[in-house]
């Protein structure tokens, strides 16, 4: 039984390097007029999304199809889950139809890890609660490496709602494994101090200017209002203190790149000018999402 992909924490550098190298080989496919390979012909992938998602679900679906696999996407609202079936029973039912892998997004942290213990089927984590989003970190690394020779020594600022961000966690694990220096930044109520112990090379600050100083990469996070169960900060002044504006970029390295996992809220976590600036690589991230997910699918079920 091939392993699925649950998180970045448990991957080593060689595995990550292999995925990123393979993703690079898949990049030109995206520009060909004939985009379909037959690497995974005859294979079946089920995309099971218990949380609303357009970009990740579409990206996985396109990745599967470009590899020649069949892909089915199921949204939880239309599934038996809404009829009261337990998660384990739903997954067992789908597994009985013998797909080759299940790509899963769920609002509960650890849901895919829990299922992986009870299911003889590779599970690819497409985001679990506030825990990990491994393919996002991989596509972010691919995007950085398209512009930099290495991650080693890069100064990466990750800014926003770190506490509730699976993107931040996966990126911290990945970047740290490759020797990047990571500055996590947000208001104290969204930046638990324990984050500093997550991985080597992580520092914390509540000051966006300090975070951006000399940064090579700025990753802005979406303000996840749906994951906050209380007002952890006064929403009205978030942009004033933690929103990224053009004037901030002068503090960073001249060739800094600005990233965002999307969907972006213009005027909340970054200004429109920044989102549309030359420094923004947000659409490159989306593009790389397909290539990276092709590499992941191939690795898991190829």
């Amino acid at each position: 039984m091939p392993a699925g992909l649950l998180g970045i924490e448990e991957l080593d550098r060689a595995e990550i390097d292999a995925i990123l190298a393979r993703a690079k080989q898949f990049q030109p496919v995206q520009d060909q007029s004939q985009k379909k390979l037959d690497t995974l012909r005859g294979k079946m992938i089920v995309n099971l999304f218990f949380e609303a998602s357009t970009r990740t679900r579409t990206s996985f679906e396109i990745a599967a199809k470009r590899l020649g696999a069949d892909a089915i996407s199921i949204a939880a609202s239309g599934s038996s889950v809404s009829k009261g079936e337990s998660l384990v029973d739903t997954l067992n039912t789908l597994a009985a139809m013998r797909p080759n892998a299940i790509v899963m997004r769920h609002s509960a942290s650890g849901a895919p890890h829990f299922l992986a213990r009870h299911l003889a089927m590779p599970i690819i984590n497409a985001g679990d609660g506030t825990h990990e989003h491994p393919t996002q970190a991989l596509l972010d690394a691919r995007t950085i490496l398209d512009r930099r020779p290495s991650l080693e020594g890069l100064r990466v600022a990750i800014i926003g709602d770190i506490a509730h961000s699976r993107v931040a966690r996966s990126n911290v694990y990945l970047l740290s494994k490759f020797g990047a220096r990571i500055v996590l930044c947000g208001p104290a109520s969204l930046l638990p101090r324990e984050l500093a112990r997550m991985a080597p090379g992580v520092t914390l600050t509540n000051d966006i200017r300090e975070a951006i100083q000399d940064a090579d990469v700025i990753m802005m996070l979406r303000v996840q209002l749906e994951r906050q169960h209380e007002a952890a900060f006064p929403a009205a002044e978030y942009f004033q203190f933690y929103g990224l504006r053009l004037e901030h970029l002068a503090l960073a390295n001249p060739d800094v790149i600005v990233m965002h996992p999307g969907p972006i809220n213009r005027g909340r976590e970054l200004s429109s000018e920044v989102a549309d600036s030359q420094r923004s690589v947000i659409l490159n991230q989306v593009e790389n999402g397909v290539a990276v997910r092709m590499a992941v699918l191939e690795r898991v079920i190829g």
Partner: protein
Amino acid sequence: MSQLLIKNGRVIDPASGTDMLADVLTQDGVIAAAGANLEAAGAEVLDATGLIVAPGFIDMHVHLREPGFEHAETIETGARAAAAGGFTSICCMPNTLPVNDNATVTSYIIERARKLAITNVFPIGAITKNSAGEELSAIGSMKAAGVVAISDDGRPVMSARVMRRAMEFARSFNLPVIDHCEDLNLSAGGDMHEGYESVRLGLRGIPASSEDVMVARDILLAQVTGARFHVAHISTRNSIAMVAYAKQRGLPVTCEVTPHHFALTDAQMLPYDSNFKMKPPLRTAGDIAALLDGIVAGAVDVIATDHAPHPGSEKMQEFEKCPFGIIGFETALGLSLEHLVHTGKIPLTRLIAILTTGPAGVLHLNRGTLAVGAPADITIFSTDMQWTYDVNQSLSKSRNSPFDGHTFRGGPVATIVNGAIVWRRE
């Protein structure tokens, strides 16, 4: 006339300071004699050579789920599992359906237990009606019907004013008030201890401060009211320090620790495995060190299991959806020996005391001693026997234990309630 003669055991009775090789004779449900070379023609004989003979253990914090949640446990199955853990008396929390907040429910539980339970069962009544935290329940009539304490356990009284009134009222009936100390506003939505592990796993945290602020509040209210206040399943270093301080000041404050809270840290939980999910949550190594120090120093009065059965279907879910709690009867003695006695932290006599005279003292029960004339509740156990816990063989109806497969050194061998052998290790 029924007699039971327990031969050649090491008899340890903390109540009288006894620790000697001796025989114990029971007659018609009470202790008749303890001494060397007892003879009793026609008595049933139990050979306890190489074993410890102790007063029956008392578990003052358990959930039997009946009435209302019989799919998880019943008074009958819970008592059987308790006996297999060496417990002869168990005190059941009121969070049943209906809640034990009046004498009718209390009497129902006592009647069911009389018919079906192989151990003694002492109910604990609710502090407030339906444990809703607003209106005081029928505390006086529940006391008359047989409750030994009051508690709203997992739905702790949030209003300090209501808690103050409850303490005052309980004092007039000489009942202890047990509080599951948790500020629900601070802990809201939390699934595990708030700290490095919760941040790493992306799970919402239950801060230690949510326990500490309530322990502080209740100690101050106990001082104001003069009520006997008992902290359920204490788990943090600050809370232990506050209880020790209250005792030093001479306040009638006591506390209990569960075996799982000194046996496991939050870092030892299997990620997203709900058999490690309970309230209070597993804390840090620093908290465990403080609990152990508290046990050694005497700040801890009682070991209680907080036996909390849940059926597999409820525990086989996303971590955040699973209910809190684990079963605990059958592993309690093994864990206590492992972490407290075999490590040399406390002598065996002290362990037996916090399983017997400790809870008997908190609840004013006429049990927990081998004195002549006392009810013949006796626990016979080994401190050396190797055995492995197989949760699928548990006598509980539920299987939610993090200790499945754990090998123990020492455990219960036979359990005697009111002079009758109700359980023996096969």
